[in-house]
């Protein structure tokens, strides 16, 4: 039982990060129908920039508390990510808004590669370690352990999501975003400059991505130029799982995917234990004997496969996702 609860807590933490990233995919997709392939790279840039700033401040021996140093890193990362997302939309996506769907999708893939390799040039090929500014303290939660860092991630992600929901539901800009998502032409007739709205969706998504980048980095303690790819793909899966274009869906999908992954990784070994089968070969039976009857077909190294299976299954059986009602038909 405590494994279950433990995996649930780990899944919730990771899922909160997925949800933040998924919101960026879903906002952009909801408004212009584009899978912004490069969004995962924005997360990576967020992690890298904040790391660089933090290292620089530590290196300068500035007499600042850790929290201030981290916040400074975060602020710079957010600014850089927003600027990148804004430029990306303007240069690579806007000119193709009326082109066939394949074209912007291919430029998005191109942008993803460009950002990744620029990061490779700037930060190198090696894993970078996050300095131990925060020493996570574990707390006992119903027999399982949850660190204060995990709590912070979950709470902060929750607050940010609540903030986004407020912006989208209650502000003028949010209303303009919802209107543009439904019918950009009529939105224009209302006096909305849809270019501004689309830029806003990109920029807000990028800010959330920057925060997510810092969270992942502190959680795992490392950053890498390639980290955005898998994270982005999983977050996209989360968005699809919840119903792409739907904010609540992205949050639900993120948390759900995190939990599926954590539970999957926790239990796949037991589920695929093959020692109970009588038709095992001699060598396998020897392995079973040597490992107290625990030889699994699949281990936790298959963790990353779950997201893809979830993605494929959702798209085949419920392409509109859990909360999505319909997938808008756009030519």
């Amino acid at each position, binding site marked *: 039982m405590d494994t279950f609860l433990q995996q649930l807590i780990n899944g919730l933490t990771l899922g909160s990060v997925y949800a933040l990233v998924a919101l960026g995919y879903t906002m952009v997709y909801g408004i212009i129908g584009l899978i912004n392939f490069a969004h995962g790279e924005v997360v990576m840039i967020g992690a890298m920039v904040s790391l660089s700033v933090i290292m620089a401040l530590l290196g300068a021996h500035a007499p600042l508390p850790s929290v201030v140093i981290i916040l400074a890193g975060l602020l710079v990362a957010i600014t850089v990510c927003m600027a990148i997302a804004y430029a990306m939309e303007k240069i690579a996506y806007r000119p193709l808004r009326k082109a066939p769907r394949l074209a912007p999708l291919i430029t998005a893939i191109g942008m993803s590669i460009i950002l990744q390799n620029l990061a490779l040039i700037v930060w190198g090929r090696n894993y970078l370690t996050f300095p131990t500014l925060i020493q996570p303290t574990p707390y006992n939660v119903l027999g399982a352990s949850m660190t204060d860092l995990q709590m912070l991630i979950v709470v902060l992600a929750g607050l940010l999501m609540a903030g986004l929901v407020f912006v989208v539901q209650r502000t*003028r800009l949010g*209303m*303009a975003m*919802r*209107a543009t998502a*439904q*019918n950009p*032409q*009529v*939105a*224009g*007739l*209302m*006096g*909305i*400059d*849809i270019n501004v709205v689309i830029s806003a969706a990109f920029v807000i998504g990028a800010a959330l991505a920057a925060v997510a980048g810092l969270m992942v980095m502190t959680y795992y303690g490392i950053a890498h130029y390639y980290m955005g790819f898998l994270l982005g793909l999983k977050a996209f899966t989360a968005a699809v799982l919840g119903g792409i274009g739907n904010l609540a869906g992205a949050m639900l999908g993120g948390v759900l995917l995190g939990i599926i992954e954590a539970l999957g990784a926790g239990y796949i070994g037991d589920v695929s234990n093959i020692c109970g089968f009588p038709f095992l070969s001699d060598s396998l039976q020897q392995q079973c004997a040597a490992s107290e009857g625990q030889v699994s077909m699949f281990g936790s190294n298959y963790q990353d496969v779950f997201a893809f299976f979830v993605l494929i299954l959702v798209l085949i059986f419920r392409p509109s996702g859990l909360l999505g009602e319909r997938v808008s038909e756009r030519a």
Partner: protein
Amino acid sequence: MTTPLLELKDLQVAYGGIQAVKGIDLSVDQGELVCLIGANGAGKTTTLKGITGLQPIKSGKIHYAGEDITGKPAFQLVRKGLSMVPEGRGVFGALTIEENLAMGAYARDDRAAIKDDVERVFGLFPRLKERRKQTAGTLSGGEQQMLAMGRALMSRPKLLLLDEPSMGLAPLMVQKVFETVMAVSKEGVTILLIEQNAKLALEVSSRGYVMESGEITLQGKAKQLLSDPKVRAAYLGEAA
């Protein structure tokens, strides 16, 4: 001789290889209710889209309130008091009625006056007030048309362009819509009305233009057009 509020000079619009509007002249004076009628596919909607920049125009000039607005995007025109109710209504189905109306006032920032205007629209269409918290997608076609018109009024337009407000509506609704058009006109809003329903359009208008295959073939006082056999011919394909 005052300058007209809206004036089209030799407007030509083409898309996808088809010349939909072949050089038309048209003007609407301050306070007038003018209709542009014609059969389906005559180029009426394309004309409106050309005016509001939704469809790029090929050549010609568009003047509004003494200013050249040729090629200006729609979102800038709203701020100048030129508002359009698109064909098929175009309400935001997932937004509530109140939010739709708020969208209509997007270009304004006088909060108190906006609030008054919402009440004014609700006065015009009590049905909408009853359902203010519902999403617009749940409304019937006629109610959606009312919402679309109410939303356009929220921008406090000087000139209102209406594209086929009666399309697909039951007769009772059509009547209600036209009565509203007249009421709005009486309040001093200048209106250019596009309609397929020629009889109704001419009954409420002071002047009318008849469009056929991208050209204006007849124009004049609404009363005269109403009894002109050529109008009927233009619609039913009879030899006039």
